[in-house]
């Protein structure tokens, strides 16, 4: 491996994208992801790529649609309000099966909200904020090093499934610095894309990228094919980290919340509690298998989010009523402290967990 660099999450994701062969970036500035735009503006010309500060977020996602359709590895990034604007484009990428990577450094909402870190766009990312029966793979990095690895993976998965992939970070993951290493060697070659709109030279008929199926039956067949693809994603792509599989109580958290919970796991064990953590890495497909592994031994789950309670719905679906599922969250850009979470966990242990 190469030498260590101390980088912000935003910068590390941008560099990882370039190392993964991304040569097209379009975006519009918004805090707390500006360092990503800024880094791309500097780096893209150095590698012969294209950086565009677009006139709007809507323009940026449609430029990614176009670049992806022509076969490029393409990315856009924003934060919550800007990602809302991109939803129509994401639906089109899914409908026409064009790969692309979308980074959301989530901030407090709704509306303009705050500029501090939040996780309140989980529903939007995992359910789809645009129209139609579509799915995107959603990756939630828990460290800056993992942000690098997941960014590289995002481009691979996007190409493999011809589908957009969302990297769901938060303001803290974007602006925090940690040491990172990038893999040595040249970027992996993207797979051949015989479907891309690269001109008809050497080929008889033009490729067409489109999401319009005007006859209902044809549109249904298209949907069935998409659903079959999403089922393959659900079979092959769930990823998670399980800390202390032998524990009695499990915290469930991703991204920044998982860092808080990791500290709580250590403190709780010093207080004599047997506490573990399930950290979903793919938020969609949700790693239900992690829950099946521990649910027989577990006494209860405590989901911790920087939201009013979104992922907790997936946790309840995965636990299927077999054990109590509790929730603790902070909203609006407030990051929960380990002390708060530990206090809430102790209530759960005492059987006074509140809502479940």
């Amino acid at each position, binding site marked *: 491996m190469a030498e*260590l660099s*101390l980088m912000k999450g935003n910068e590390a994701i941008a560099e990882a994208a370039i190392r993964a062969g991304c040569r097209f970036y379009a975006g519009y500035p918004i*805090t707390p992801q500006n360092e990503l735009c800024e880094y791309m503006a500097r780096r893209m010309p150095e590698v012969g790529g294209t950086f565009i500060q677009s006139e709007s977020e809507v323009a940026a996602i449609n430029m990614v649609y176009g670049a992806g359709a022509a076969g490029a590895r393409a990315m856009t990034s924003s934060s919550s309000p800007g990602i809302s604007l991109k939803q129509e484009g994401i639906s089109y990428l899914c409908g026409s099966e064009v790969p692309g990577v979308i980074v959301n450094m989530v901030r407090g909402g709704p509306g303009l909200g705050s*500029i501090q870190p939040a996780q309140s766009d989980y529903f939007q990312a995992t359910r789809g904020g645009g129209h139609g029966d579509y799915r995107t793979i959603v990756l939630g990095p828990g460290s800056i090093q993992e942000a690098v690895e997941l960014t590289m993976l995002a481009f691979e998965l996007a190409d493999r499934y011809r589908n957009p992939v969302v990297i769901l970070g938060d303001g*803290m993951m974007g*602006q*925090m*610095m*940690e*040491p990172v290493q990038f893999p040595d060697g040249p970027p992996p070659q993207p797979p051949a894309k015989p479907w891309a709109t690269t001109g008809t030279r050497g080929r008889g008929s033009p490729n067409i990228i489109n999401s319009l199926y005007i006859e209902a039956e044809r549109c249904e067949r298209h949907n069935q094919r998409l659903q079959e693809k999403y089922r393959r994603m659900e079979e092959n792509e769930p990823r998670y980290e399980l800390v202390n599989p032998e524990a009695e109580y499990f915290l469930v958290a991703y991204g920044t919340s998982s*860092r*808080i919970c*990791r*500290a709580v*796991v*250590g403190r709780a064990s010093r207080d004599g509690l047997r506490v573990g953590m399930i950290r979903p890495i793919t938020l969609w497909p949700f790693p239900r298998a992690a829950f099946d592994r521990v649910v027989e031994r577990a006494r209860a789950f405590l989901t911790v989010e920087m939201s009013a309670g979104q992922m907790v719905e997936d946790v309840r679906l995965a636990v299927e009523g077999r054990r109590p599922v509790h929730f603790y969250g902070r909203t609006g850009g407030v*990051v929960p*402290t*380990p*002390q708060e979470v530990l206090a809430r966990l102790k209530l759960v242990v005492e059987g006074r967990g509140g809502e479940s």
Partner: protein
Amino acid sequence: MLHEVLMAGFGGQGVMAMGSLLAYAAMLEGRHVSWLPSYGPEMRGGTANCHVVISDEPVACPLVTEPTAAIVLNRPSLDRFENSVRPGGILIYNSSLIDRAPTRTDVRVVAVPANRIAEELGSARVANMVCLGTFLALTGAVSASSVSQSLRKALPVHRHDLIPLNEAALERGAQLARAG
């Protein structure tokens, strides 16, 4: 060994730079480290703080809520963070700009006339480095040579003429700590 450091001051006092220099030096020494900024929407004149965690193990929580050491460069930061320092921890405050003494008796309180020393050295802008020097001498969190090496990496080459000034400021801060 675990250092959870909180640094705070006005935007423009070099709080983020001081923190990233410390984090960089820790990385060069092969330690696990995180640097977390926190600021309001304003770039200059607002309050800014950063959290640096240096550990022998992977950093679980980059958020510092009970610092082992706090370095505060202005009065609002002292008022806000004095009570958060862990009992037995260290509180370094910039006595050039802060017009009251801390009241904690269960932490080691160190007054550093950082702006006065920095001005003696020729630039008030290295007041942050004076405080960092005091912190390093008290804790041994990273070596002075790692910080010097970090300065060479962090500063663009056309600013390398500022390195001796920064090193002098670190040394004056360290002397203050050694004088006890």
